[in-house]
């Protein structure tokens, strides 16, 4: 933003400060509707969720629930559903790592190798994601089908056994997760790679650094902000997702999202569902904090 210092301030209703921002009540008035919406429909629900997770599980939809600070809800939820919970974290992590590798290659190619096609490629990265998520995920069912092209090829190459399959396996679920969340990785990676001055890389090669050394000493560290935000933007929704697990996997690949969903909607077991949901949020929050601290880019958040 350009500085307004030295320019005679023009008469406006609000007073401009040095950084060009105005003081005054108008700012509050503009922000108020959005803030209220978020307070009522985002912050308040969290309070409600935590309260629900501590209700007496004996209650029901009809009889109502009693607040008994029933912390045992957390223990019983954990002992009943630790499988899906751990599985979600593992699938999410694996999918994120694969996304990072694939996304880095494409973002790197776009930023440094694509020349004037850069922005066309960017549009192409986003375009598929304006088509329905569920419709796209269902088409993976066809791609990975038992007598489909992919399975037949892998069987021919002896990668898969003759009765081997992809559908209803963890491979299919993770492939679906990778596919669906890849753009969330590519966009921040591209944004941060595109900002790197190519002369820095040239300088490293002028100083006789091997291209690999140049990459790890120059490009990679400079792209870290993109790596951190891309990883978070991929990992968080991937852990909470259950669409891929349900459409492409079998009951053996059930993820925590579908447990929460079914406890809420089908079992009407609100305290259990709410405690699972709270736990998932806290777990993710804790992992994100540790990760961000490790990666050393606190200024991101």
């Amino acid at each position, binding site marked *: 933003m*350009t500085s307004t210092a030295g320019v005679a301030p*023009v008469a*406006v209703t*609000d007073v401009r400060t040095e950084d*060009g*921002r*105005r003081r005054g009540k108008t*700012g*509050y008035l*503009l*922000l108020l*509707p*959005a803030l209220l*919406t*978020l307070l009522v*429909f*985002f912050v308040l*629900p969290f309070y*409600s*969720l935590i*309260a*629900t997770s501590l209700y007496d599980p004996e209650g029901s939809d009809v009889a109502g629930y009693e607040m008994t600070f029933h912390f045992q809800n957390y223990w019983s939820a954990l002992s009943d559903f630790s499988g899906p919970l751990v599985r979600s974290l593992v699938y999410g992590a694996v999918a994120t790592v694969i996304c990072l590798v*694939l996304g880095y290659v*494409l*973002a*790197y*190619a776009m930023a*440094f*190798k*694509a020349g004037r096609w850069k922005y066309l490629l960017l549009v192409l990265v986003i*375009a*598929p994601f*304006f*088509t*329905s*998520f*569920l*419709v*796209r*995920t*269902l*088409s993976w069912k*066809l791609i990975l089908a038992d007598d489909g092209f992919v399975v037949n090829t892998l069987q021919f190459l002896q990668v898969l056994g003759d009765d081997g399959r992809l559908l209803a396996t963890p491979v299919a679920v993770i492939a679906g997760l990778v*596919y669906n969340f*890849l753009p969330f990785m590519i966009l921040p990676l591209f944004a941060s790679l595109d900002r790197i001055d190519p002369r820095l890389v040239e300088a490293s090669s002028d100083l006789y650094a091997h291209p690999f050394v140049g990459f790890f000493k120059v490009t990679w560290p400079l792209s870290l902000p993109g790596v951190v935000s891309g990883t*978070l933007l991929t990992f*968080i929704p991937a*852990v909470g*997702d*259950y669409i891929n697990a349900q*459409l492409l996997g079998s009951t053996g690949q059930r993820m925590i*999202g579908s447990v*929460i*969903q079914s406890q*809420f*909607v089908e079992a009407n077991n*609100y305290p259990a569902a709410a405690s699972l*949901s709270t736990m*998932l*949020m806290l777990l993710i929050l804790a992992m994100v904090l540790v990760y961000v601290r490790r990666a050393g880019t606190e200024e991101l958040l």
Partner: protein
Amino acid sequence: MREHLVLILGLLVLVYMFVPIFVVVLMSFNDPASRNVYRFDGFTLDNWTDFCGPQGMCSALWLSIRIALLATGVATVLGTLAAFALVRYHFAGRSASNLLIFLPMAAPEIVLGSSLLALFVATGFAGQLGFWTIFIAHVMFCLSFVVVTVRARLAGMDDTLEQAAMDLYATPAQTFWRVTFPLVLPGIVGAALLSFSLSFDDFIITNLNAGTETTFPMYVWGVAQRGVPMQVNVVGTVMFLLSVAVVVTGELNSRRRRSALT
């Protein structure tokens, strides 16, 4: 060859991203011979001509469109106002507000959806889940994306043009409508398109708060177990073509404007 290795690998990743789209387009012309709808059996135009054939599909589609339009309208107005406040005004609690706007994008959808449901249950709205609760949920999660998109556009804008207008004795209102607003408009339009597509496509949050209503993603989810009508792929194809058309017109427009300037 080694020079181009990264480019080739990158393009392969891009191809991977397009494979399902290709399948969706192909299957929109499929004439399924049996109940196995995961195989291409023959070419037909029936899915396109008998578009509303599958029971319940078009009403679900219509519900999704209505909710997306309404939620986008509200989220875009509220979000744009908030973005102006955050970029142009000074006040206590700015960073807290920024954090509050960032958090809904960082929370997993299942947590957002279930906490909203917990609120509706606690306040006695459990029996009235439907159009309005879906609408509220969608405004809530679209809002942050609108603020972030418009804010980016505003922050990247050169404010000397506004100063020039005011130096030429434009009133604040004239400056806003003649200079500021047209410059921010592409950001607002982009935010609205993003918001529409987020709302139209949402399944996880909607499914928790929809009661007995069925949106298009919920319809697809429901038929996924039984056998998907091929018309679903027609919807996917049309959505893809529409989004490409929007992007291309936008790109052509900004290119024309750029060449008009030089």
